[in-house]
């Protein structure tokens, strides 16, 4: 157990010059007014041991937020606190220095002087000191140096906070810290769950794949069965046997046709089957395309096509001639004949000519007579009444003659014109059949040309010129019959061969089905392939490792909870009497006959839970006053401290103003309790309470050292006298 023997402070908070405190008595009392440096002295000891861990928000101590280490009033602030600690191995020195940053980083350095004389500094010193102390700052601040915050934690009505505070008071923070630390890490259970989920999804896909392949295999089996291969024969030997048979059949077939044998080799391995099938298929295709008689068949088909085309041409010609004859008969029935139409048209043309001449003649005569009459009328001034031809005297002779002329010649002209119009109308009627006759004549000439051309073409087909004695259509039809006969012969021959090839093709298809079924069966071994893979083996190992890790973490957590529970029990059991005694001494509360701190396990978290009950087991938490709870916190601290064995890391207790808010009687009670504590623990106590100091003087039976803090100035710091 570590106990302080000397503390030297310089530049720490309110301190300026170097100040030394000797802790050479079981009790050290720091007495003085407010702000004279008492608390800073206790804080200096604390800072020396824990450095920056005792400041900041993480301490959960309100005043430690933005807490300044250095004295703000010094021109060159530099902090040094040296603490001498003694235990069974001897005395060691802990020296911590701090230089605030002016330029660059602040300097915070720790040095240790070990009992064997060795010096360590820096991070090695921090690690060594942590091993010596075996406590976190939080533990120290609750079990050695009781802060108001700890008291507040116990006083609180919030069970989890109270349980936490009591755990700390019992020095079980390590367990809590371990559990909290585990809780801050990613939860391996979740990780395992996520992997299981992903694995499940993968397994789902495998299930689907297995089902799919099974269906495909079933389909292949059905197809193979349709081709006559029973499911029991869907084996590799069957496939190789079929392949061998196919090869023999093809070779025999080629031999029968005097064709070179297809380049196929014996298949002895399943993996060669696809290439073999491809070669067989090519050979079958080639044989189908180059079968003997097939060229002749093709030529005969071509000739037959040409012959049929010519027969067809003749048939078309015949039909056209029939149509032509029909049209001529129709015209003849309407118009007599082409000669008659043409003759009549010639007659009309002749008559029209005559009428034209006659019209010209009458018209000429009319002009002459009109000109003569005009002349006579112009040459004679008076009227001519005597005819110069017949010398007949007629009144208004010229008028009479002009009327006569008009009557006679005009009538003639009109008759001529009427006759001309009638003839022309008749001619127009005759022009259409005349044109049709001409067109038919032309067409007839074309048909004759076509007939001649066809005869030439047919001659070419038969390789000779046709004579008038030849009937080309009969010749063509005879040829067609011959071709047809030969083609039927060839077709029968080729069909037989093709059928044989089709049989071989059927065997090849069977071979394909068997091979596909075998492939599907191979594919079906998905599970085996996955399980045999290195990745799956590794995954399985990882899953095993993770499961083991999860198991271990759960076991560790359970073990921590059990250990925490057991240690709490071990600590509480011997301290129960002292806690009860101190509580009753401190409070003098007669209503509480007995106070018990019962240890339980939280049903949800498995962590320690504490019930504060009376002797009958009734929960006291709701009925205890704040003062009682404060007293309980003090009683627990002091009870545990006095009951703790020699294995506790610290052999001292620090109390800062413990009589705060206590009445005169309670102060005396506290002094009595502290006298009890002094029997097992060194006591460092700061107080400004003269009444309490008097109580301590009177009731503490152990030797005391007293430091009187008489005043404080910014430049000189606290003025301290040892009494």
């Amino acid at each position: 157990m570590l106990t302080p023997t000397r503390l030297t402070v310089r530049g720490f908070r309110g301190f300026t010059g170097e100040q030394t405190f000797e802790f050479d008595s079981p009790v050290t009392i720091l007495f003085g007014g407010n702000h004279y440096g008492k608390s800073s002295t206790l804080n200096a000891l604390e800072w020396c041991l824990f450095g920056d861990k005792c400041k900041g928000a993480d301490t959960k101590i309100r005043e430690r937020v933005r807490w300044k280490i250095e004295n703000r009033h010094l021109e060159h602030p530099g902090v040094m606190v040296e603490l001498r600690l003694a235990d069974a191995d001897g005395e060691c020195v802990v020296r911590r220095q701090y230089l605030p940053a002016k330029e660059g980083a602040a300097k915070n350095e720790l040095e240790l002087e070990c009992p064997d004389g060795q010096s360590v500094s820096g991070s090695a010193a921090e690690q060594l000191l942590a091993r010596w102390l075996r406590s976190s700052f939080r533990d120290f601040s609750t079990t050695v140096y009781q802060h108001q915050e700890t008291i507040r934690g116990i006083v609180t009505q919030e069970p989890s906070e109270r349980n936490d505070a009591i755990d700390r008071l019992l020095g079980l923070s390590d367990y809590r810290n371990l559990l909290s630390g585990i809780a801050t890490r990613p939860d391996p259970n979740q990780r395992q769950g996520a992997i299981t989920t992903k694995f499940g999804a993968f397994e789902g896909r495998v299930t689907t794949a297995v089902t799919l392949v099974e269906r495909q295999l079933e389909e292949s089996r059905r197809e193979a069965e349709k081709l006559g291969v029973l499911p029991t024969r869907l084996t590799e030997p069957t496939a190789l046997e079929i392949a061998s048979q196919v090869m023999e059949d093809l070779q025999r077939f080629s031999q029968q046709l005097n064709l070179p044998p297809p380049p196929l080799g014996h298949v002895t391995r399943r993996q060669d089957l696809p290439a073999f099938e491809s070669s067989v298929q090519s050979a079958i295709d080639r044989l189908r395309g180059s079968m003997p008689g097939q060229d002749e068949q093709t030529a005969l088909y071509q000739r037959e096509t040409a012959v049929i085309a010519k027969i067809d041409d003749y048939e078309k010609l015949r039909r056209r001639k029939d149509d032509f004859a029909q049209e001529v008969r129709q015209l003849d029935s309407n118009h007599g004949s082409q000669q008659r139409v043409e003759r009549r048209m010639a007659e009309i043309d002749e008559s029209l000519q005559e009428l034209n001449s006659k019209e010209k003649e009458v018209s000429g005569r009319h002009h002459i007579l009109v000109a003569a009459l005009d002349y006579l009328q112009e040459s004679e001034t008076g009227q001519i009444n005597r005819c110069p031809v017949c010398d007949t005297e007629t009144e208004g002779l010229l008028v009479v003659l002009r009327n006569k002329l008009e009557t006679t010649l005009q009538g003639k002209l009109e008759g001529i014109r009427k006759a001309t119009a009638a003839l022309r109308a008749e001619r127009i009627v005759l022009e259409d059949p005349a044109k049709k006759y001409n067109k038919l004549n032309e067409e007839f000439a074309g048909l004759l040309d076509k007939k001649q051309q066809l005869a030439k073409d047919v001659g070419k087909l038969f390789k000779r010129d046709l004579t008038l004695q030849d009937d080309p259509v009969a010749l063509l039809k005879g040829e067609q019959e011959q071709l047809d006969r030969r083609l039927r012969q060839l077709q029968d021959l080729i069909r037989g061969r093709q059928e044989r090839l089709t049989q071989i093709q059927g065997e090849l298809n069977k071979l394909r089905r068997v091979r596909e079924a075998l492939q599907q069966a191979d594919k079906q071994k998905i599970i085996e392939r996955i399980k045999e893979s290195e990745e799956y083996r590794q995954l399985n190992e990882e899953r095993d490792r993770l499961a083991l890790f999860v198991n271990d973490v759960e076991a560790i957590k359970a073990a921590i909870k059990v250990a925490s529970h057991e240690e709490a029990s071990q600590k509480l059991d011997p301290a129960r009497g002292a806690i009860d005694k101190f509580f009753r001494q401190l409070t003098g509360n007669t209503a509480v006959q007995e106070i018990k701190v019962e240890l339980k396990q939280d049903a949800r978290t498995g962590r320690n839970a504490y019930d504060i009950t009376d002797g009958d087991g009734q929960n006291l938490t709701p009925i205890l006053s704040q003062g009682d709870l404060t007293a309980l916190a003090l009683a627990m601290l002091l009870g545990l401290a006095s009951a703790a064995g020699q294995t506790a890391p610290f052999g001292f207790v620090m109390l800062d103003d413990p009589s705060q808010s206590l009445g005169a009687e309670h102060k005396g009670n506290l002094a009595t309790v502290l006298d009890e504590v002094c029997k097992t623990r060194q006591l460092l106590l700061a107080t400004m309470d003269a009444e309490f100091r008097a109580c301590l003087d009177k009731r503490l039976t152990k030797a005391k050292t007293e430091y009187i803090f008489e005043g404080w100035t910014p430049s000189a710091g606290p003025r301290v006298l040892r009494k």
Partner: protein
Amino acid sequence: VTTDLYRSLRELHARHGAREFGKIVQKLLAIAFRLGGFGRIVERGVQGVDVDADGGARERYTTEVKTTQKETVLFARKDIDGLAHRQRDGYRPLLAVLRLSPLSDLLIVHTESLRSGRLHIASLRPHRFHELEARLQPCFTRAVLEHFEGALTGSQFYLDRVVREYGIEVSEPAFSSPRSRGRNSVHPG
């Protein structure tokens, strides 16, 4: 499991349903123990732990069999009590879990440190009895494939005859009464 084994188990499950499937697997596991070289085997169709297998002084196992399609199995208090009862007779308690899925194997785990309740199958992995799994897995596969057709058509009644032919003791015939048949049914998970 292998593909063939998975397909066979799946068909048995589809044909007979979860409850009957559990009983079938229990009997097939008993046969697997026999094929694995165990001497005295007791298969309980109705009451108590499902299978006891005695392969000599250091190989006496009592096995509760669970089948499931889920990620968890229910390891009930009565299962622990039953195993503990057999443990007192010198049998080492085991839990055999068959999850019906393509990538799951027959898990055989020690139950000494198992708690009762619904257990995640992944959490059983640290407790696996690898040696026995390796020994029984091929025997179980053989038992399933050999008796698949019979079990498919004749269910546990066919297997009852088979287990007797193998010289396995059947503590109570599964067909004793419809009521008793359902009492120790394997939970579907």
